[in-house]
């Protein structure tokens, strides 16, 4: 993919609004982890991840000229991706979320010790109750996300994120311990 030189968001936004292809490519690249995070939170299967990306990025390409404040772009992508993700869930008749993971939705990693620990982490994360899981999944996908981005991406008030975050990671620690994992997970 052609990448443009590193520029700040205001300049990138202005170039996108003018229809600059390289700038749009760069903008999409910078926000793809947000789209992926929302897809994970909503448990979209791979083919729906692609639909989510196309409708979210398509909306940006169509409306970039109307966005005035470049500082709002990260939250714009988080909000739009969630809106489009919920639309896709409804379209597929799967808007009722369950706590079971669809089997084989994602490609299996190679079977070695590292993969075993990754699977244990996945089980621990999926063992978290609904809102806790959504927050942890998004934070693991976008460790640098601001509270406002998290709020838009998972539909949680900003003021709830701090308290739920403390509780959720506490539970994750317990679930990881139950999987026999402590600090060792962090060693590669």
């Amino acid at each position, binding site marked *: 993919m052609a990448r443009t030189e590193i520029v700040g968001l205001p300049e990138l936004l202005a170039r996108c609004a003018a229809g600059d292809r390289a700038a749009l490519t760069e903008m999409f690249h910078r926000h793809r982890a947000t789209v992926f995070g929302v897809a994970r939170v909503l448990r979209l299967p791979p083919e729906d991840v692609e639909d989510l990306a196309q409708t979210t*990025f398509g909306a940006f390409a169509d409306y970039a000229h109307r966005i005035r404040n470049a500082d709002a772009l990260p939250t714009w992508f988080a909000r739009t991706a969630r809106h489009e993700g919920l639309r896709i869930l409804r379209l597929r008749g799967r808007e009722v979320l369950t706590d079971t993971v669809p089997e084989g939705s994602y490609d299996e990693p190679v079977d070695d010790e590292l*993969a075993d620990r990754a699977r244990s982490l996945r089980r621990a994360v999926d063992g978290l109750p609904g809102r806790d899981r959504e927050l942890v999944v998004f934070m*693991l996908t976008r460790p640098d996300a601001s509270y406002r981005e998290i709020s838009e991406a998972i539909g949680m008030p900003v003021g709830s994120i701090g308290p739920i*975050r403390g509780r959720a990671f506490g539970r994750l*620690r317990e679930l990881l311990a139950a999987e026999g994992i402590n600090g060792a997970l962090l060693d590669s």
Partner: protein
Amino acid sequence: MRIVPDADSFDLDLLGARLDEEDGAVQLLARIDAAAEAVLDARDPDAAVASLEYDSVLDDDWRSRLRSGRTQRVLAFTTKSCSVDVEVEVVIERRSMTGQIAPPAEAAIVISHREGSTSSAADGQGRFLVDDLPAGPVRLSIRRDGERPVETTWVAI
């Protein structure tokens, strides 16, 4: 005093990397990049954008009125110069679409989708019909004589 464990006591980057391994994140991010390319390839910089103003999928009243087994979906796009109402029907794995342009006019219709594009035409009453579309994101392009081209936003069908 009990110290509540917090995100700060985890290395989020490392935990995230482990989750990525389990989720096949590399393949999924490649799909996201492919979708980004598809958006760029299908753009007409001269076209007016018709926004999705109504989607029956997001309308609980409409959904509750639907009898079970009915699969129609109604979409309405508008821009300054025209509006386009579309009814989408699920035909097994494929989708068919009937549309109405207002004000009514003959128009060349091109629908971009995952497999490429499908062409059709609206008659003098502004009606058009397109069969055998793939599921997934679509965008309609509408060209009328003497008018600026119109493109709808992407929507998954």
